[in-house]
């Protein structure tokens, strides 16, 4: 015996009390159940995958040996190894089923080539692990943890139940079966997850955790899934048969029976969630009517798609904008397309909050990285933009930002001209305004793309900063409700904003320049 077999023997002697007797195992093998599935159907886990997986033949011979040992404590009863009962002979050719009838090849880790699964010793999970590692390398991911997501077709759990009901039907009276429960089964998903996790952890040197890096394994088996859908239709049909004329359903059943592809019109495809729900609610007898017990053998395995990606990374902060696309000769009437766009607004003061979403980042940025980004922006030669408080934030930042937009106040500084000199009375009138209600019709300049409506807004306060050397120009500081149209408040927009600065002062007012000096949000401060 080599060391592999030694390990296997040790393992088996521990597992023997859970495993069924050899004649039952032969039976399962003859129905195309793979060795890993046999282990997990009886709750045997922790098979150390560093040893090559037992071939069916080895498994059988080891088990039979164990039972022949006179002092073996076997609670599995004394059913004679009635080899004639079970047709399975692992050494005979022509008896083989390449893909497991229960897990559909998922736990058999083929490497994609048509290899002989019965004899292949290395259908080890390392096949899958290598494929994943390849992808990680190819897509240049750097990770310090991972989280595995597995998606299996519902037919696999239907198969688990089918094989169980088959065994119950056949072995319920045998002593070894009494006390065994469906709930002791390890699901394909759990078995796969633990195999892959252990293997990946040792291969990549990082731990599985609730990480933002996802490795998604999606298994699809079209043939088995469409057969399942047929059964689902039949089941729905049974339920409706009492109440409806059902030529449609019968038509579907006929088609199902012939295994033809069903046109979209007649075939109502249930989603995976609905299928799971329906199956869970189904009683054993209904299930047994619809499904083959044990599950049918299959010639195809599942198709696996591996995708590796990082959940979005969010970087938030505040930015300041120092340029405006304005020329000295702005007041000459230029090409009409220049229009309003030329009075562009700078963002000064504490800056405006912003959020950047990075999809599928190859590396998780650290605080140091973020600081480097901020420094690079702020030290660049063209100082059009600077950022403040740049940092990593969670996905809730989106909601914070959205809420803030609608509710918060903003502060502006506008260069204003009026049609007569500013007086002390004007000055005081402006400074004494507190929380003034104004009504703004949608400004003409945006009316082509916004709804026509009246907007109530509040001017919280205003302050005049006189400009030396001019009596009709001044700097107006104002703090308003978010969403207020400042330019229209100054010039009145043909009377569609009321009151306006002009109507308050009793003269014509024009806006020459506008800057945002503060965006009062509790965001990225």
């Amino acid at each position: 015996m080599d060391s592999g077999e030694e390990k296997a023997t040790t393992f088996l002697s521990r597992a023997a009390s859970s495993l069924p007797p050899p004649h039952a195992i032969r039976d399962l093998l003859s129905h195309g159940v793979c060795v890993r599935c046999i282990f997990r159907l009886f709750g045997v886990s922790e098979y150390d995958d560093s040893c090559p997986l037992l071939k069916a033949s080895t498994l059988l011979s080891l088990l039979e040996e164990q039972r022949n040992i006179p002092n073996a404590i076997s609670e599995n009863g004394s059913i004679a190894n009635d080899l004639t009962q079970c047709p399975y002979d692992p050494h005979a050719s022509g008896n083989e089923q390449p893909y497991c009838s229960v897990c559909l090849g998922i736990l058999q880790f083929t490497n994609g080539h048509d290899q002989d699964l019965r004899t292949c010793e290395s259908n080890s999970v390392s096949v899958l692990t290598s494929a994943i590692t390849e992808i990680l390398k190819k897509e240049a991911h750097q990770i310090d943890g991972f989280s595995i997501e597995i998606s299996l077709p519902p037919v696999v759990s239907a198969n688990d139940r089918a094989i169980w009901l088959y065994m119950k039907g056949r072995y319920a009276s045998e002593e070894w079966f009494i006390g065994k429960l469906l709930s002791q089964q390890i699901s394909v998903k759990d078995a796969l997850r633990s195999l892959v996790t252990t293997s990946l952890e040792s291969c990549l040197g990082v731990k599985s955790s609730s990480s933002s890096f996802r490795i998604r394994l999606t298994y699809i088996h079209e043939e088995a899934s469409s057969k399942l859908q047929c059964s689902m239709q039949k089941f729905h049909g049974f339920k409706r048969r009492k109440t409806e004329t059902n030529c449609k359903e019968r038509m579907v059943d006929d088609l199902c029976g012939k295994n033809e592809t069903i046109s979209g019109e007649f075939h109502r495809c249930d989603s995976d969630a609905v299928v799971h729900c329906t199956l869970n609610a189904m009683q054993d007898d209904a299930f047994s009517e619809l499904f083959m017990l044990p599950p049918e053998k299959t010639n195809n395995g599942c198709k696996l798609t591996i995708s590796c990606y990082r959940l979005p990374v969010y970087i938030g902060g505040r930015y300041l904008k120092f340029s405006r696309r304005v020329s000295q000769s702005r007041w000459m009437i230029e090409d009409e397309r220049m229009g309003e766009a030329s009075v562009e607004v700078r963002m000064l003061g504490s800056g405006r909050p912003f959020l950047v979403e990075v999809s599928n980042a190859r590396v998780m940025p650290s605080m140091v990285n973020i600081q480097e980004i901020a420094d690079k922006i702020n030290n660049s030669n063209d100082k059009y933009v600077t950022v403040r408080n740049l940092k990593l934030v969670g996905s809730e930042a989106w909601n914070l930002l959205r809420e803030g937009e609608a509710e918060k106040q903003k502060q502006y500084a506008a260069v204003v001209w009026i049609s007569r000199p500013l007086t002390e009375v004007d000055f005081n009138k402006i400074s004494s305004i507190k929380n003034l209600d104004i009504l703004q019709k949608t400004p003409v300049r945006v009316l082509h793309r916004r709804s026509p409506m009246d907007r109530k807004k509040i001017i919280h306060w205003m302050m005049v900063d006189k400009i030396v050397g001019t009596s009709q120009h001044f700097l107006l500081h104002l703090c308003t409700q978010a969403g207020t149209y400042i330019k229209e408040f100054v010039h009145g927009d043909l009377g569609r904003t009321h009151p306006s600065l002009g109507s308050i002062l009793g003269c014509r007012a024009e806006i020459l320049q506008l800057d945002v000096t503060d965006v009062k949000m509790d965001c990225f401060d």
Partner: protein
Amino acid sequence: MEMPKAELSTPSSTPLASLQIKKEDETLKAVSFPSAGDRAPNHGDDLRSLLLPDAHHLPVTPPSAIETNFTCYFALDFLKPGHDQYVYRHANGLCVIGLAPTHVALKEEGGVVRVDFNVGKSDRSEMKVTGKRKRNAKHFESNTALCKVFTNGNFFLARCCVKGSLLEVNDRLIKQPDLLNTSFFGDKGYFC
């Protein structure tokens, strides 16, 4: 001229708090009016110096918002002599239509005394356009009647002058027909 103290209640310390200007700052340093290639300030600069323009660069009489943002067209003697109207067209394609200062109605004693949007077929002031897609906007030809303009002795029909969809009617004219006579603090007496 006194420089005011910053009477602002701003949270914690924002750059604006540094607006407490001492008397010597009254003579503004020659900060040039921001040009297209603006740069960020060095650490020592005030937010204020960024904001304040140099008086020398400010236009003495800037053009009005209408002159800046609209192209002003005039329809003279539209369908009848002396019936002069304006069409102010915004870059986004929307048009504001009104009585030109040379319109014959404005030459009468007392000018315009009443405006009635009921032009027989329908009352223009009753239309309601909703939504971004501007549903219910009635399609008008250039000779479609907009409203009746009454003076002390006469009335005149104002026309659309352009082909398009009516978005909004200036119903302020119903209560304040005088808006058509003089531009009131920028509140122009336009029809629609």
